[in-house]
């Protein structure tokens, strides 16, 4: 049996209840702990073996053993976590919180010599 | 007055005679120009004379001997026409036409010579009033201009169609005979005289439809003939009945009687009028008539001859009010209006659209006449005027477009405004004249709607409401097609000859002028006419609205002009069309599924599933036939 305007009940209920909108960015979004946002490195633990770089499907990581730098193209990382899984030193983590959109392609470089630079 | 009148009737016949003889197109042209100038001149003088004499109806007194001779001549000519029809019928084996012709001519001869039923005339046989003047004006101006147009057109026509025999002599002669007959028809007050001219127009139409002598043309011409002759039988029957039972033999006496006994004969006359105006169920012939060269379509099958039917109805309208005859006529008219405007949606042949629209509009006039009250007659007369001019304009323009582009199909007219801007704009003026505020047809429709409501004919109101919507659709579609601009179209060479142009332009100017002078025409011509016929005429469209209409009229010229100027100053960047990102970059093509360039094409809608001839033709024929038969049986049966 066809009903005309079957959706009315839902529509009226929606109209008179609070909207479902999360109000981002006025209210920050809370992410579950497993949420894969971006890669963090504890650079001091890194042995510059380059395993992560080879595992990375999208080639986002560059490891320069001689300069002792570990560099990640933030706009090239697909958050797959492959690098995390292969790292022998378990110095990589994938944590909630995505890289902010930007007009430039963000590249983060970490060096064992200096403070992290951007 | 009398002299002028005879001049008007005889001039065209004389021209016809000459044109029938000359072979040289040079001479033909000169004769046509001269006839045109003289006919229009005489007509104008005639109209002015009428106005100067106080604009009262005039009866032209004729001597008895003249009347007697004329009567006899007419009878003789009718016999000739009958013989012509019989011979043609036998030649082409279409015997029913001959049958109808013999019946009616026989009946009329018997009635006039033998029966003794023929009463004395109360009024003179010739009669002039404002309606006559309007018709005279239309016939003289529109009619002769079309003959001028025909000069150029027929030249091109035979240039394009070498397969047809060049029978231009015959063609022009027929056009002029027809014009003479039309003058005669509108001047006649005597029903028998009217009948005589009526027959001539039927036969001329028949001959012109068969002009090309192709199988289709012959078939269609016979369809036209037998339907018109059937109507003629009705006419003859009506004359005899009315003469016998009411002692009436002229129109003026007829419309001034208020006896209920005239309803039956009036129905017969109306029947004749319905066939002539191609109302349902007799619409087929007018569609078939479109095989004839365009000038004859314009002249006979749109602007004038088919108007004879509604003219007769308008004349009869006082006796149509509030009786079965009127109900029959108005219902058939309203119904035809709706059905034909629906059918007009489904065709793409420009001339066919015009044909459907013609029948449809005639339907509206018929409905107005059938209701037969002051307001509807007012609207009917206006519709008649506007329709004559704008349809003639449209037919001519479409004819010229066909010659310029090789096709008269609407689908080939996309972007015509770029290729043939002048023709496109005259076409647009014609179309706008047919349905747009504030042009005349719309005003009349508006008045008709009001009048229908006032007279309580709710069914007609509905037919009009729905019919307006369908009318809107097919005209808008056409107009939008013509005005679409395909950017890479270039202006094509204008091949339309000067005489065609002259006629088209004069029509376009008349069209616009009519809109401006519409209040004047209303108060100076139509209201007096209505006053005379109905004794008192109400103000159909109040002053208030006339002001608004004029405002709208100005705005339709002023606003575009202003918009044009302001648009000129609007800065914009020319870009490609949006085609889902696969525009080939050249505006007309896109990259198709094979990676090739393909031209996109935007056809119009025809809605054949809904309004198609297959769907609605038969039912509407049946409905209208049943309506006619039932109503005729009721009244005729009641009368006998």
């Amino acid at each position: 049996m066809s009903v005309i305007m079957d959706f009315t009940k839902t529509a009226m209920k929606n109209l008179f209840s609070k909207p479902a909108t999360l109000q981002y960015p006025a209210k920050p979004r809370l992410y579950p702990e497993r949420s894969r946002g971006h890669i963090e490195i504890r650079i001091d633990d890194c042995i510059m073996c380059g395993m992560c770089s080879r595992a990375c499907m999208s080639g986002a990581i560059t490891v320069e053993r001689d300069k002792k730098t570990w560099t990640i193209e933030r706009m090239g990382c697909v958050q797959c976590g492959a690098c995390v899984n292969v790292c022998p030193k378990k110095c990589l983590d994938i944590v909630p919180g995505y890289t902010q959109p930007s007009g430039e392609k963000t590249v983060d470089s970490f060096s064992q010599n200096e403070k992290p630079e951007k | 007055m009398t002299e002028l009148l005879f001049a008007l009737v005889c001039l065209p016949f004389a021209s016809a005679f000459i044109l029938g003889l000359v072979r040289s197109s040079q001479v033909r042209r000169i004769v046509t120009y001269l006839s045109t100038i003289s006919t229009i001149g005489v007509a104008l003088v005639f109209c002015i004379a009428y106005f100067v004499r106080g604009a009262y109806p005039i009866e032209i007194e004729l001597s008895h001997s003249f009347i007697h001779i004329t009567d006899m001549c007419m009878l003789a000519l009718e016999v000739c026409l009958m013989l012509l029809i019989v011979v043609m019928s036998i030649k082409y084996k279409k015997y029913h036409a001959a049958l109808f012709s013999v019946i009616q001519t026989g009946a009329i001869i018997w009635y006039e010579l033998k029966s003794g039923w023929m009463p004395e005339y109360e009024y003179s046989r010739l009669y002039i009033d404002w309606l006559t003047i309007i018709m005279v004006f239309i016939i003289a101006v529109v009619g002769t201009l079309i003959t001028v147009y025909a000069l150029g057109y027929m030249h091109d026509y035979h240039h394009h169609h070498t397969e047809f025999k060049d029978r231009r002599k015959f063609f022009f002669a027929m056009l002029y005979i027809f014009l003479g007959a039309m003058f005669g028809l509108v001047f006649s007050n005597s029903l028998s005289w009217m009948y005589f001219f009526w027959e001539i127009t039927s036969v001329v139409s028949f001959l012109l439809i068969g002009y090309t002598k192709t199988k289709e043309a012959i078939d269609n011409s016979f369809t036209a003939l037998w339907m018109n002759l059937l109507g003629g039988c009705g006419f003859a029957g009506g004359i005899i009945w009315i003469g016998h039972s009411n002692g009436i033999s002229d129109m003026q006496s007829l419309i001034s009687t208020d006896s209920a006994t005239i309803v039956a004969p009036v129905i017969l006359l109306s029947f004749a009028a319905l066939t002539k105006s191609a109302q349902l169920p007799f619409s087929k012939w007018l569609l078939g008539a479109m095989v004839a060269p365009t000038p004859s379509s314009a002249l006979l099958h749109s602007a004038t001859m088919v108007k004879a039917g509604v003219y007769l109805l308008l004349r009869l309208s006082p006796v149509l009010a509030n009786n079965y005859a009127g109900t029959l006529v108005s219902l058939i008219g309203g119904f035809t209006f709706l059905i034909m405007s629906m059918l007009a949606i489904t065709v793409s042949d420009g001339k066919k659209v015009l044909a459907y629209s013609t029948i449809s509009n005639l339907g509206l006039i018929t409905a107005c006449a059938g209701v037969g009250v002051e307001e509807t007659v007012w609207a009917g007369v206006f519709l008649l005027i506007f329709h004559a001019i704008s349809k003639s304009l449209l037919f001519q323009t479409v004819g010229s477009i066909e010659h310029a582009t090789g096709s008269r199909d609407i689908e080939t007219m996309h972007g015509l405004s770029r290729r043939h801007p002048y023709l496109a704009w005259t076409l647009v003026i014609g179309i706008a004249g047919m349905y747009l505020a504030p042009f005349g047809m719309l005003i009349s429709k508006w008045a008709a709607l009001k009048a229908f409501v006032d007279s309580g004919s709710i069914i007609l109101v509905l037919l009009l409401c729905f019919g307006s919507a369908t009318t809107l659709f097919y005209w808008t579609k056409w107009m939008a097609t013509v005005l679409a601009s395909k950017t890479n179209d270039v202006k094509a060479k204008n091949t339309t000859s000067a005489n065609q142009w002259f006629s088209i332009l004069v029509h376009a100017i008349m069209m616009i002028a009519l809109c401006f002078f519409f209040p004047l025409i209303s108060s100076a011509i139509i209201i007096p006419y209505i006053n005379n016929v109905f004794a008192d005429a109400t103000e159909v469209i109040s002053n208030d609205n006339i002001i608004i209409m004029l405002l709208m009229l100005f705005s339709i010229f002023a606003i575009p002009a202003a918009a044009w100027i302001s648009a000129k100053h609007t800065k914009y960047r020319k870009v490609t069309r949006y085609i889902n990102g696969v525009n080939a970059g050249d505006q007309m093509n896109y990259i198709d599924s094979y990676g090739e360039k393909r031209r996109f094409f935007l056809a119009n809608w025809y809605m054949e599933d809904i309004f198609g001839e297959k769907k609605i033709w038969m039912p509407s024929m049946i409905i209208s036939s049943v309506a006619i038969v039932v109503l005729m049986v009721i009244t005729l049966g009641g009368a006998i």
Partner: protein
Amino acid sequence: MMNRYIISAIFIIAYIVLAPFIGGLTSGVDRKISARMQGRQGPPLLQPFYDVVKLLKKETVAINHVQIIYLLIFLVFVIFTGCLFFGGFDLLLVFFSLTTSNLFLILAASSSHSPYASMGANREMVQMLSYEPMVLLTAVGFYLATGTFKVREIVMQDNLPNIIKLPGLFVGFAFILTIKLRKHPFDLATSHHAHQEMVKGITTEFSGEMFAIVEISHWYENVFLMGVIALFFINANPLSILYALIGVTITYFVLILVDNTCARLKWKLMFKNTWITTAVIGVINVFVLEVITKGVI
């Protein structure tokens, strides 16, 4: 007499000045309520104005400049229609003028000869074909109920509100309003919503200022159409203005609700539904009215 014209003039000026604000605001409320019915927060109330301001500031691109001309004429005719209505003139004339305005919108779209714009224009024509009989019949209904086509006189009559005599026509008119206001289920030619097979239909090729014109004329048109709805309620009694306001509000709300609870129908169904509605509801109403008026008088 003079007085009458002054009052007309005041109304006309008020319409010209206020209609965009009322129309824009209504449209804002509409969007807000729609959003809430969909469980969203929705745009700010003044969003329609922001949109138009933005459009006016944007670059205008066009296929050809006749497009702009037709659009301007369209705008003027829409305003003219409203002026005729609020000036209290003949209702039939008002509707004819409305038709003319719509014609120019169609011309503006089809003159671009662009696939989606033209298909939208074709659909717009079908829409006109669908609603036109009802529109004319509405005018006829008012005439039968009040004996006049003049808005001024319809408003001044002191019988019961017209809706009492014209319930069928009211429903019928509200029905076709879904078409005129471009709401589901009949927003075929162009839609306020993003995803339509027509892309943006009739407005596809209008950008920047041109699209702003379309939006503004839409506001004018909406106010005018709401005026027609109000006409069903208003009579000489000043209190009736209140009824009219309530009536218009309820009607509009119902239209929004319909908009949010229906799928878009196909053109054939639209055409059939509107004609049948017209032929049934409208005609019965008119016939009954005819009988009553004839019977009573």
